[in-house]
């Protein structure tokens, strides 16, 4: 059974004519000790999914369950019980840590929120030291302040803080996007080690497909607020079915292959006024732009349908195209 699950998750910002449906009808399920990757470009709603799952933004429709228990209401996702299980690590480690608090205080505060045996100050001190070791920071880090650390070390502090609460589900929102490659590698390796040792479940959100491929067991691809493809990682990267996924994969520069011409033309549409029918039809290389007879894409929104096995695709004309 999955630990954290969302069905038909829908999030809307604002109201009336200026309303923006950032996430629409998204299904996802996190399994114990496994990683679900979530990729998409800016404005596709991936960060909104993260914020909704940790209760920072309210849900307008759908259902969220933690270990089968309903946590759909805003209050449930803000309850101490839920927070002790589900935590989030933010993109920018330079802005997600209070600059006025030492690392020791940051960890201590999170441990206090855990309650129980951690009401004892001595117990919290011991646990803070243990957490630092776990995320690979020296023990003298406790008395120092966030600005005294590099970006990678700050991200370790943020991870340590999420673990201090006792969480076993981590929502990782672009956690390495602000870091250099050499540092990114250390943080990704740390996350993989922690997952192995503590059987953590990750929702790994990134715009970078190559990082998602490395970290995830299965992957969701989002476009303009909707999931367009869902498959096991190996399957998705060897046999992408949705034309958007294919285009994303072709767009990534590679260390080995030759450069391919840009697969998509034009910009993504304004998410406030998404196109009717399939949201991708305005840029789709196999849609009505290229093949005018495919009018179905203009009228009918394609539902996420099983392709083969676990593989699900939301496209009227999906066909697996080997990369």
């Amino acid at each position, binding site marked *: 059974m999955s630990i954290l699950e969302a069905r038909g998750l829908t999030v809307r910002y604002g109201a009336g004519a200026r309303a923006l449906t950032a996430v629409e009808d998204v299904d996802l399920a996190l399994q114990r000790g496994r990683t679900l990757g979530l990729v998409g470009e800016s404005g596709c709603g991936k960060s909104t999914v993260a914020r909704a799952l940790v209760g920072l933004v309210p849900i307008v429709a759908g259902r969220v369950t933690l270990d089968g228990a309903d946590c759909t209401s805003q209050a449930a996702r803000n309850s101490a019980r839920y927070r002790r299980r589900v935590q989030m690590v933010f993109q920018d480690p330079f802005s997600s840590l209070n600059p006025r608090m030492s690392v020791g205080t940051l960890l201590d505060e999170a441990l206090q929120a855990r309650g129980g045996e951690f009401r004892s100050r001595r117990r919290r001190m011991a646990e803070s030291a243990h957490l630092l070791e776990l995320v690979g920071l020296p023990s003298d880090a406790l008395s120092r302040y966030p600005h005294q650390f590099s970006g990678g070390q700050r991200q370790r502090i943020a991870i340590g803080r999420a673990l201090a609460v006792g969480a076993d589900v981590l929502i990782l929102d672009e956690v390495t996007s602000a870091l250099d490659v050499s*540092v990114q590698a250390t943080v990704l390796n740390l996350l993989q080690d922690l997952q192995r040792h503590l059987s953590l479940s990750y929702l790994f959100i990134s715009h970078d497909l190559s*990082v998602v491929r490395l970290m995830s067991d299965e992957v969701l691809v989002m476009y303009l607020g909707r999931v367009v493809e869902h498959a096991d990682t190996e399957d998705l990267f060897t046999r992408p079915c949705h034309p958007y996924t294919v285009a994303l994969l072709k767009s990534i520069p*590679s260390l080995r292959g030759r450069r391919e011409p840009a697969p998509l033309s034009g910009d993504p549409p304004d998410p406030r006024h998404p196109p009717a029918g399939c949201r991708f039809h305005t840029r789709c290389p196999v849609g009505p732009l290229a093949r005018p007879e495919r009018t179905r894409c203009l009228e009918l929104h394609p539902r996420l349908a099983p392709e083969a096995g676990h593989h699900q695709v939301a496209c009227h004309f999906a066909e697996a195209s080997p990369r």
Partner: protein
Amino acid sequence: MAFLRALRTAPSAMLAIAVLLLLLVIAVLAPVLLGHTANQFDFRAISAPPSLAHPLGTDRLGRDLLARLLVATRLSIGMGLLAEALAYLIGVPVGALTALVGPRWRPIPMRVIDTMIAFPGLLVTIYLITILGPRLGLVGLAVGLAVPEAFRAARIVSTLALSIAGRDYLAAARVVGVGWPRLVLRYLIPNMAETMVTSFSVGVSFMIVAFSGLSFLGIGVQPPNFDWGRLLSEGVDSFYETPAAALGPAAFIAVAALAFAYAGEAVAHAANPRVWTAAPPERANGRPGPSEPPHRLPARGGAPDPTLLVEDLHVRIGDAEIVSGVSFSIGPGEMVGLVGESGSGKTMTALAIARLLPAGAAVEGEVSLLGRRLAAMPPKPLARFLGTELAFVFQDPMSSFNPALTMGRQLTEGARRHRHLDLRAAAEAAVARLSEVNVPAPRRILRQYPHELSGGMRQRAMIAMGLMNSPKLLICDEPTTALDVTIQAQIMDLLARVNREHGAAVLLISHNLALVRQSCSRVLVMYAGRIVEDLASERLLSDALHPYTRSLLAAVPDLERPRGAPLTAIPGQPPDPIARPPGCPFHPRCPLAQDRCRRELPPLVAHPGGQRVACWMAEVEAVR
């Protein structure tokens, strides 16, 4: 305590605090010790000049002026503090409330605050004092001064609180489960404190002056009470007999106001952990002095007449040497990539070439564009030469356009200025360039403002602007970093076409090794202000020799890499530019470092394999 240490390092702050403490001691003690003397009439010494018995002389009733001045300290400073405290007592809750009410209702208190700030504060004060003064005395005065000030405080509080409420660390704390009281006490208040303390102390200083002013005009303190303002007004009447009677109070008012303003700022600044935990700058104990090899090597470029030739370029900002002896060349029509991690000096190198460095940066070395040494050219021809032959594309297309001007104005400016085209001809040229970079409806774009375009469209417009004068060199600094991958692919197509069709040489600066490898013919790898390797991009993966280049390649999560294999991380961090290690700057992180690497800086030398490498171990690596 670290906080006190931070204070001690600033002598002017210490002086301000000492003066402030002295004033407070006087305020407490003087009325007790000198209160009697200050009110004692001495009719034998009326309006006496300064003497031993009366250091500042006496007033028209024979009272000792120094004693009166010291005794008045309590009332003057006390009223300043009381009025400012009252202002904050009213203003802080009003400001906090403004920040707390939802965005829908916020404009109402905001506009009230704005209106009150726009209204002349002195008029409000005089009006309130006239009403309240007779009944409430000194408290009425304080209230009169506090009310206009309260709205200023409310404005500061609401603005600060709203800006902090949007920060990630507040969201992070909410997710961890930090409760509201603690969010306010440990997150909001500490992060607002620096500004609040400063504005409070500056406010007190303003209040002391304002209160003295009111008393001077006769609508402040009424006899028999007296403060500095009152003493000043009495002193001015007898200025020609006893100038000290006026100068004394004036000096006290000025000193007290300055002390409050400075001390508050100093205390607030020192309370910031960023300040008191900053490590004192340490210098590397061994500079790579004598072992530094001569860098006047011919920069390998291939073509005999390079478009760009950079020789031994150094860029210093303060104590930090950001670029330390960079030499390379770019041939006509060549596309060269400059890669490195943040802080490697790649952007500074580019800015130095284009002469766009911030003021205060010191540049050494030679840059020649199309065979002309830039340093030798007089300013006007140089600006024209760079304006036509070189174009610069910045990372963030939003901040590199002026938001207040239409795209048309900005795109045509260079052509109008350097090629003296009229507006119509320049606009036609701009339309041609825009269509060339695949901008749909270019005529409409010319009438639009930068914010009306998408990021990809702005970057295309930036490139079109660069192409307006058909430059021979295009420097692109992370041109796609702010863009999505599908848009990045479009921009890279465009750069490749510009390079091919216009024959413009391109220097592509990026942190993305794969991007550079796929687009450029040659790759320059920078580390700690130096080029450590220079090789053909098709040989990057197979033949790179520098351990840094190889570690970087191993850290890239490429799509072709086997999925189970962990990424190779580079231990440690790049060195601080003010304290680079002696020898090879990469040695503390290098798996191959030997004694020689710790002592001597390896020069960038041509290697039999056909590349330039700066590594003592390159020979060993080549064999491996």
